[in-house]
């Protein structure tokens, strides 16, 4: 291997400085980078490990109910967080079903977001939650919606000098969130389709706002905005639900692979949008 240096910055500023070195690469938990490194698919000169950076850690909640999660929080921390279990239970539920305990123990939220594999579970969940990512660079910080963050297969809108410091999820008051990961073969596999649904339901039982996000059915995790929109103002069942499922299935562009043909995945998007919306509404 060609890596000349391993850097463990003590502060965010040190991390940002280390990232300016030629051939540097950020490392969270290493579950993806480890595979790429050992197969010589990447050859960084400097590895900058931010998995233990204090400024990227922690899970908290603001006065307005905004949930803030550090980019270095591990999937294990998400899955076991009592705060998240109360504030946004879909997140620990999804995080706890990814990979295996060894992967969850080290894989970080930030790593999960920037890896950009469309089959991952957390991106659609966070898309449906309308999460914002906090991004830092030597030149300053910025905040960006996760919608628009994914450009293509393993392509994200992040500059070479930028790193994700955390994620903000808006308050979940009156929202109901569910995530379905459909693994018809082994449960220990990427999902054939992943469907995240967030619905805000009014007192009258009408859907006031909605998001539907899909994983595994395009070159990137996507929002099915039109499908979600078609639910607004309805009770979320019957013909409206069928229509939302149909629109979501038509919206995605899956590919053929061992986890299913494009046709099958599209069909499964329809089934699982219907089931996930129904699950949201039933409790």
């Amino acid at each position, binding site marked *: *291997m060609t890596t000349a240096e391993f850097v463990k910055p003590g502060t965010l500023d040190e991390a940002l400085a280390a990232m300016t070195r030629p051939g540097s690469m950020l490392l969270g938990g290493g579950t993806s980078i480890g595979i790429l490194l050992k197969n*010589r698919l990447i050859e960084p000169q400097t590895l900058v490990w931010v998995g233990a950076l204090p400024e990227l850690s922690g899970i908290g909640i603001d006065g307005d109910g905004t949930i803030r999660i550090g980019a270095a929080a591990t999937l294990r921390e998400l899955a076991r967080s009592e705060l998240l279990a109360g504030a946004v239970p879909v997140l620990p539920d999804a995080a706890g079903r990814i990979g295996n305990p060894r992967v969850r123990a080290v894989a970080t939220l930030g790593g999960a977001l920037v890896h950009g594999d469309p089959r991952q579970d957390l991106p659609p969940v966070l898309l449906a939650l309308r999460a914002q990512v906090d991004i830092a660079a030597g030149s300053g910080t910025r905040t960006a919606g996760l919608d628009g963050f994914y450009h293509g297969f393993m392509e994200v809108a992040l500059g070479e000098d930028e790193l994700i410091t955390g994620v903000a999820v808006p308050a979940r008051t009156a929202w109901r969130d569910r995530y379905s990961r*459909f693994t*018809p*073969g*082994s*449960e*220990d*596999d990427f999902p*054939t389709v992943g469907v995240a649904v967030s619905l805000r339901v009014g007192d009258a039982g009408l859907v006031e706002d909605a998001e539907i996000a899909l994983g595994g059915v395009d070159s990137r995790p996507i929002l099915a905005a039109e499908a979600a929109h078609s639910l607004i103002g309805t009770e979320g069942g019957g013909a409206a639900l069928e229509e939302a499922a149909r629109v979501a299935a038509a919206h995605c562009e899956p590919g053929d692979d*061992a986890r*299913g*043909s494009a046709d*099958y995945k599209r*069909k*499964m998007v329809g*089934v699982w949008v219907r089931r996930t919306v129904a699950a949201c509404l039933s409790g």
Partner: protein
Amino acid sequence: MRYVNDVSLPGMTYVAVARSSVPHARIRSIDTSVAASQPGVIGVFTAKDLQVSTYGRSVRDVSVLADDKVRYVGERVAAVVAESRVAAEAAAELVEVTYDELPAVFTAEEAIAPGAPTVHDAPWAYPRAFITEEQGQNRQSVVEEGSLEAVEEALQKSAFVVDETYTTSAIHQGYLEPQACVADVEPSGKVRLWLTNKSPYILRSQIADCLGIEADSIEVQPIALGGDFGGKGSPEEAPLCVALARLVGRPTKMVLRYTEDLLSTDARHPARIYVRIGCDTDGNITAWSQDALLDGGAYGGFKPAPTVSIHGALEPGGYRIPAFYSRSVIAYTNTVPKGHMRAPGAPQATFATESAMDELALKVGLEPADLRYRNLLRTGEADVNGREWIEFRGQETLDAALAALRIREDAPAGWASGVGISVYSRTTPTSTSSSMRLVPMPDGRLSCEIGVIETGTGSHTVARELLAKGLAMLPEDIDVVQVSTDELPTDPGAGGSRVTASLAMVADQAIKAWRARLEDEPVLVVVDEKGGPPVGSYGVQIAQVAVDPETGQVKVLEILSTVDVAEIINEKSHQMQIDGGAAMGFGYACLEDLDESDGQVWSANLGDFKLPSSRDVPDFKTVLVRGGRGVGTANVKNIGETTTPPTAAAIANAVADAVGARIRDLPIRAERVLALIEAAP
């Protein structure tokens, strides 16, 4: 426990190989200069450096390094010897090979089509080839039994006939220890070898023939094996590592990365099996024909025999069949070389024929179990080859299975439930050629030296318990040790459901010799047992499934294995063979597929080639039908290969029972099931 990868010798060097990136090509040139100049690299070698011939367990058609041609993606082309594994692997990527690509064949059907590209120019010319030029190009073996004419005539007169084709996928043995080798050549020429191999005595001559040395100059060292399932019987990397150790004058070590193992070792043959079964109006079988075409991959030498047995439930004489025909053709293709895996041939054939039996039952209007019951042979009857057996206990086994069946009521809401049955029977080898030494220890303990490697099936436990019983000793006072090939005369190796029966025969002789010994000295026995009348064992499986009608997802809730047994030497080891065999049958049925379309293995790591996990597997239940008559004075029957072959058909039959979808292609993927549900009238 020490495995090959744990062996470290002074002065060790590490081997990695450059592998073919194309399925079929002439090698125009190999440039090793860049690889050779990398730090830590001792040397880079190609076929012309080695001065070896081909190797193989049966036909000797495998090149140590590709010579003029490559025949599959993953074939060894050049070898790097370096001071570290990482250095060797990095340099191997820098070997530059220029290929002139050739048209290729990726399936057995393509391979035997007239005018197909030839994988080997003259496969009949390899030492110990099993075919002749007259049998045609791209064949590894052609085996025919019975009379096609008699079958055709009987089918004409049959009241009901099933006439269907079934296909199965290529799968890997899935042992978790990748293939590995350590070779050390002493100045005298003596070779010490540590290899992930279960047949050390036979291995010596396989390597010696290839390298042009004497078999007894090779000493195969005792070592634990991290899983076998049929995949660890070939010399694999040993001829290369020994040849390289000779060239560099230092010990060599090569450990495959798991991806390399999936790309280049001896996966189970995918098969297309055309089945025709006829019966009369009462459901009595009148004719049976099975015509199998199997993809043998680029080389045949990974198999201990050039054939696989496709007899399925008929192997020891399962059903009463008046007119019988069987043909199996194994073709050469430009895919991963295929080998033997747990009951080679039987999982493919049993899926086909036991699915066909259910299709026949539907036509006749009989319950699937009733159709089988009336056709199972009874003790005293002759099998399809006219042989009489010690006993047939198929009907008792089926009765016991049905009596133990408890219908599951835990299918998820909205899912359909189904029950499926499958019958398999297998012979217990009654012959062996083996040896054992009993050595008294100063502290009163007994050391038992055997040539049988512990592949993970509990064979050493079995040896200990056999001796303890025969010598009235406590098992914990007996140490069973596998010794190197220099220490004992012979052993047949593990596999073929033979270990327990073989150990029982040699232990029986050892116990007699030990009792008759005059002085307190070691006792060596060598047995060459030719065997008596055939002994068989039935395995009946009943699978219960739930099927999601909207997605086609199949959950296998339970597999009930009912097994015809005689004496059981160690109950726990025996039970684990039953459970582990059924788990492997489940993986074959529902998950595993190397996916070799276009000659590339697409499931090239264990993230994509899914082995069943602890939450994937169904509940396993077992009924033992005791009282059978087994082999020898120990009175044992085979178990290691009894519960894998019937599983796929049991699950497919259960799916058909649940939703009417008849699966004729493995693996049983949700997408296939849904397509069949939607296509149903």
